[in-house]
C-alpha cells in the first residue's frame, strides 16, 4: 500500500495551519446534543431529569428506563464510536494504509464465527461470558493473520492481504452455518448487525476499564508509532524495532475493537471513516489523529444512533445501528473521496508481489488444462444419490449436473479474468471484483429486483445486474476523472459500495424477512438456480470476453509499472484504463448474475497463477482463467456432495477450499 506522502511531510506549509476537524466535530456533537435533548424532553419533564439520570425512583418506570436504558445506550454509543476510531487510527498508522480498519483484519468475522460455533456446540461458553467467546474469536483470527504475515516481518501489505483473506474465509464459514442452522443463530444475526440497545450499565462497566487500560498501554508507544510514518528503512535507521512495534500496535487495536464488537456487535465503518475524515480535515500528525478520530467517531456513532431512535416506528425496528453506520458511512466516504489527497500511479513496494517466474509457462498452462479436462467428467459423473455414492453419466442426472458444472466453469473464468485485470490495473494484490464494488453493485440491482419483482426472468435480471455494475463504473469514471483513475481512489469507491451492500444484506438478515434466507443462498454463490441455456450462454460469453482481453496483455504488462513508465512506453493511460475497467465490469456482472458476488475466486485465481510462476500478463490471464474454472468446478462438486443431501453454494466452498490453499501459500513464502 502506498504511504501517504502528506503524512510523511508533517511540517510542510502546503496546508493552512487553521484546518482542523474541530468545526465538523462541534457540528456533529451539537446535532447529537440537540437530538438527545429533544429525546429527553419527550420522555420526562425537565425537573425529573437529574434524579432520573443519577438516582431514579424505583417505582417510576420512565425514570428507570432513562437510567437503565437511555443513558447507558448514549454512553455506549460514544464509547464504541471512540474506541473503534481509535483502533482504526492505530491500524492505519501501523499498516501505513488509509484503508485499514478493524474490519480489515478479520476481527469482526472471527468474533462472529466464534459466537456462532459456541451457540451451536458449546452454549455453556456463552453462559459464562459471550464477551470472551467473541474476544477469543477475534483474537484468534488476528493471530492467524499475524502468523500468515510473520515471515515477511508483518509487512503492511501482507498483513492487509492476510486480514482480508482471513476475514472472507471466516465470514464464509459463518455464512455456511447460518444457511444450515438459521433458527439457532438468530441471535448471531442481531449481533452481526450491531445493536446498541442496553438494559443496564453492564456494557459500560465492561468497556470503560478495558479502554482505559488500552490507552495507558498506548502512551509510551506514541513516539515510536509516529515514526512509522517514515518508510521502513528510514524508521529502522532511527532504531525502531519495526516488527515488534507493529505487533504491539496491532494487538492493542485488535483488543479494543474486539471489546467493542463483543459487547454490542459489529459496528461497521466508524473505524475506517473517522480516521479518514480526521486526516482529511487537517489532522496531519499521528498525535492529532489520535485525538480527533475518536472524537469524530464518538460523535458520528452518537448522531447515528440518536437519529435511528428518533425515527422510531417501523424503521427503528428494522434498522440496526451497526448496519446503519455502514449505510450512512458509505455515501459519506463517497463524498469525501474527491477531497482525500491520495496520490496514485506509483509502483508498489515489492512486499506483495512474488518475483519468481516459471521458465516454461506453456508447460504449466498445459498441465492446468489437462487437469480441467480430467476434472469435468469426474465432477459430472461422481456423486451421491438415494442409495449412496455412484458413478453415472446418463441423461437424467446429467440434466441436473451439467448446467451447474458449465456455469461454475464460466463464472470461474470470468471472475479470474476480472480479478487479474483489477489487480494489474491497480497494481494492488488486494484488489478483486468485490473490492472494486462491481460485484456488490451488480448484486444490488438484483436484490432490488428480488424485492420489487419476485420471480423475474433472466431477461430482466441481465440488464439490471449489468446496469448496477455499469452504474458503479460510471461513478468511478466521474469521481476519478481528474486524477486519471488513480488506483487508490477506485479501490476506495469500491470498498464504500461493498460496505453499503454489506449493510443492506445485514439488515435483511437481521430483520427476519423471509426473502433474506434465499438471498443468503444466492449471495454465497449458488449454481442451483441456473438452467442449461443460461449456463451455455454464460460460458460462451466468458470465452468471448477472454478473447477480448488477450489483446490487452501489453497494457496489463506495462500499467503496473506506474503512470510515468507506462506513458513513456506508449500506453494511452485514460483510454486503456477505461477499456479494462469496462471489461472487468462486464465480467463481474455476468458472473454475479448467476452465482452471486462470490469474488473470492477473483482475488484467488490471479494470485495462484502468480504463485505458480505465471507472472507475465498473458500467461497469468490464461492461467488464472484455468485456475478459476478449476476452483469453482471443485467447489461446486464439493458443495453438492460434502454434506449430502444438504447442498452448499459453490461460492461458499470456493472461499473455503481456495482460501485455505491461499493462506497456506501466503504463510509459506
Amino acid at each position: 500500500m502506498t504511504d501517504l506522502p502528506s503524512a510523511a511531510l508533517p511540517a510542510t506549509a502546503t496546508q493552512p495551519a487553521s484546518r482542523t476537524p474541530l468545526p465538523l466535530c462541534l457540528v456533529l456533537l451539537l446535532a447529537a446534543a440537540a437530538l438527545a435533548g429533544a429525546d429527553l424532553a419527550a420522555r420526562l419533564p425537565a425537573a425529573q431529569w437529574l434524579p432520573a439520570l443519577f438516582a431514579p425512583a424505583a417505582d417510576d418506570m420512565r425514570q428507570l428506563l432513562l437510567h437503565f436504558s437511555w443513558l447507558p445506550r448514549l454512553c455506549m454509543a460514544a464509547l464504541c464510536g471512540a474506541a473503534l476510531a481509535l483502533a482504526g487510527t492505530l491500524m492505519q498508522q501501523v499498516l501505513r494504509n488509509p484503508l485499514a480498519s478493524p474490519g480489515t483484519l478479520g476481527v469482526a468475522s472471527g468474533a462472529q464465527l466464534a459466537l456462532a460455533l459456541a451457540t451451536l456446540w458449546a452454549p455453556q461458553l456463552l453462559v459464562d461470558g459471550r464477551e470472551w467467546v467473541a474476544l477469543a474469536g477475534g483474537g484468534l483470527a488476528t493471530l492467524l493473520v499475524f502468523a500468515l504475515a510473520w515471515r515477511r516481518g508483518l509487512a503492511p501489505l501482507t498483513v492487509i492481504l492476510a486480514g482480508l483473506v482471513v476475514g472472507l474465509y471466516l465470514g464464509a464459514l459463518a455464512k455456511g452455518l447460518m444457511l444450515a442452522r438459521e433458527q439457532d443463530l438468530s441471535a448471531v444475526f442481531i449481533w452481526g448487525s450491531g445493536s446498541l440497545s442496553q438494559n443496564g450499565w453492564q456494557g459500560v462497566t465492561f468497556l470503560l476499564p478495558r479502554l482505559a487500560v488500552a490507552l495507558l498501554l498506548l502512551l509510551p508507544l506514541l513516539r515510536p508509532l509516529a515514526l512509522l510514518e517514515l518508510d521502513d528503512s528510514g524508521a529502522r535507521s532511527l532504531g525502531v524495532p519495526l516488527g515488534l512495534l507493529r505487533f504491539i500496535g496491532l494487538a492493542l487495536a485488535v483488543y479494543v475493537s474486539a471489546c467493542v464488537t463483543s459487547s454490542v456487535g459489529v459496528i461497521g465503518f466508524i473505524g475506517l471513516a473517522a480516521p479518514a475524515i480526521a486526516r482529511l480535515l487537517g489532522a496531519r500528525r499521528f498525535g492529532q489523529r489520535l485525538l480527533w478520530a475518536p472524537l469524530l467517531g464518538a460523535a458520528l456513532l452518537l448522531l447515528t444512533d440518536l437519529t435511528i431512535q428518533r425515527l422510531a416506528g417501523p424503521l427503528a425496528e428494522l434498522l440496526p445501528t451497526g448496519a446503519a453506520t455502514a449505510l450512512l458511512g458509505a455515501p459519506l466516504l463517497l463524498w469525501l473521496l474527491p477531497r482525500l489527497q491520495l496520490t496514485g500511479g506509483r509502483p508498489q513496494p515489492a512486499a506483495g508481489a512474488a518475483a519468481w517466474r516459471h521458465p516454461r509457462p506453456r508447460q504449466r498452462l498445459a498441465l492446468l488444462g489437462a487437469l480441467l479436462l480430467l476434472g469435468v467428467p469426474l465432477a459430472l459423473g461422481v456423486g451421491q444419490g438415494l442409495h449412496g455414492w455412484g458413478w453415472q453419466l446418463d441423461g437424467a442426472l446429467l440434466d441436473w449436473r451439467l448446467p451447474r458444472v458449465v456455469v461454475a466453469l464460466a463464472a470461474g473464468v470470468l471472475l479470474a479474468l476480472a480479478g487479474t485485470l483489477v489487480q494489474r490495473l491497480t497494481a494492488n494484490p488486494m484488489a478483486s471484483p468485490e473490492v472494486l464494488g462491481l460485484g456488490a453493485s451488480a448484486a444490488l440491482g438484483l436484490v432490488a429486483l428480488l424485492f420489487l419483482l419476485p420471480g423475474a426472468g433472466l431477461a430482466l435480471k441481465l440488464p439490471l445486474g449489468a446496469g448496477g455494475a455499469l452504474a458503479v463504473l460510471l461513478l468511478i469514471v466521474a469521481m476519478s476523472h481528474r486524477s486519471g483513475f488513480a488506483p487508490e481512489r477506485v479501490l476506495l469507491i469500491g470498498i464504500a459500495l461493498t460496505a453499503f451492500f454489506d449493510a443492506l444484506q445485514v439488515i435483511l438478515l437481521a430483520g427476519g424477512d423471509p426473502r433474506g434466507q434465499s438471498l443468503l443462498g444466492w449471495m454465497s454463490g449458488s449454481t442451483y438456480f441456473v438452467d442449461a441455456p443460461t449456463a451455455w450462454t454464460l460460458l460462451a460469453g466468458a470465452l468471448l470476453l477472454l478473447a477480448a482481453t488477450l489483446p490487452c496483455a501489453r497494457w496489463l504488462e506495462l500499467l503496473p509499472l506506474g503512470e510515468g513508465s507506462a506513458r513513456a512506453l506508449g500506453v494511452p493511460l485514460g483510454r486503456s484504463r477505461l477499456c479494462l475497467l469496462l471489461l472487468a465490469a462486464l465480467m463481474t456482472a455476468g458472473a454475479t448474475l448467476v452465482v452471486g458476488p462470490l469474488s473470492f475466486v477473483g482475488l484467488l485465481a490471479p494470485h495462484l497463477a502468480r504463485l505458480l510462476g505465471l507472472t507475465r500478463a498473458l500467461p497469468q490471464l490464461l492461467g488464472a482463467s484455468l485456475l478459476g474454472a478449476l476452483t469453482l468446478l471443485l467447489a461446486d462438486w464439493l458443495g453438492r456432495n460434502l454434506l449430502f443431501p444438504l447442498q452448499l453454494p459453490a461460492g461458499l466452498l470456493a472461499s473455503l477450499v481456495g482460501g485455505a490453499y491461499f493462506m497456506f501459500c501466503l504463510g509459506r513464502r
Partner: protein
Amino acid sequence: MRALFAALLLALATPLAAAPPQRIATVDWGLAETLLGLGVTPVGVAQLDGYRRWVGAPALPAEVVDLGLRVEPNLELLAELKPELILISPQFENARPRLERIAPVQSLALFTPDGEAYSGAQRVVRELAGLLGREAAGEALIARVDARLAAVRARLAEHPQPPLYVASFLDARHVRLFGAQSLYQGVLERVGLQNAWCGRTNYWGFAQVGIERLAERPEAALLYLEPLPPDAARGLAASPLWQRLPLVRAGRAHALPPVWSFNGLLAAERFAGLLEAQLTATPPSDSARPQP
C-alpha cells in the same frame, strides 16, 4: 332418483378423472405439519433435523427422506424420489422453475402480507385437503382445533387475565414479540385473551425489540417460549432493568414449552393447550419467579 344417479356417477368419475397424488414432497415445515395433520406422510421434507429440533410435534416417521436445505432442496434426490406433487410456500418461489421439471408444484401460503395467520392456516388445510382428496379429514381437523380453542376460551373465562406479551428471547438484550398477523395473535383472540404488543410486526408477525419495550404495558404479563438462548437467563438475571420491569417484579413472566411459531393449525392447537395449562395453573405466588 335422477339426483342419486348423478351423485353416484360423480363419485365414480372423480377418482378416475384425477387420482389425488400420493407421493408428496415439501420444503416447508408448516406444510409438512399440516400434511401429517391430514393423515398423509410426506416422502421427503427439507431440513429434517431442523424440523425435529424446532417443530418436534407431530413427529415425522423415520422413512421420510431429508431433502437438504429448504431454500435449495436437492434436485437429484428429489427427482429420484419421484414425487407426484411438490409443496412450497411463497418464500421458496424462486426454486419453482427447477422443481417443476420434477413434478407439479403447488405454492400454499400460511403467511400472507395482509392476512391473519390463523385463518391462513385454516385456508391452507382446506386447500391441501382439496388437493389430496381429503376434504373430510380437513374439515374434521379444522373443527377439532376450533372446538379445542372454544373449550380453552370457556376454561379461561373463569380466570380473568391481563394482556399478554407472547415472546421468544434472542439474547439477554433482545426479544421477539409476536403481534398482529402472527399465529399466536389468532389463538389469543379466539381464546378471549388480549395481546399486549400492538406495535408493528414484520412478515412473520413478530417485532424484534430491546427488552426495555416490555415496560410499555406495566399491567401486562409475559409468556416466553422455550428454549431460552444459552446466555439469556444469566444476562437477564444481571440486568437491573429486567429485574425492575413491573411484570417481572409482580411475577407475571412465565415460560412456555417450545412451539414452532411459524407453523399451521396443529401448532395453534398446541399453543392453546399450553396457554390453558399455564394460565389455569394454581395462581403463582407473587414474586416467586423473579427471572426466567
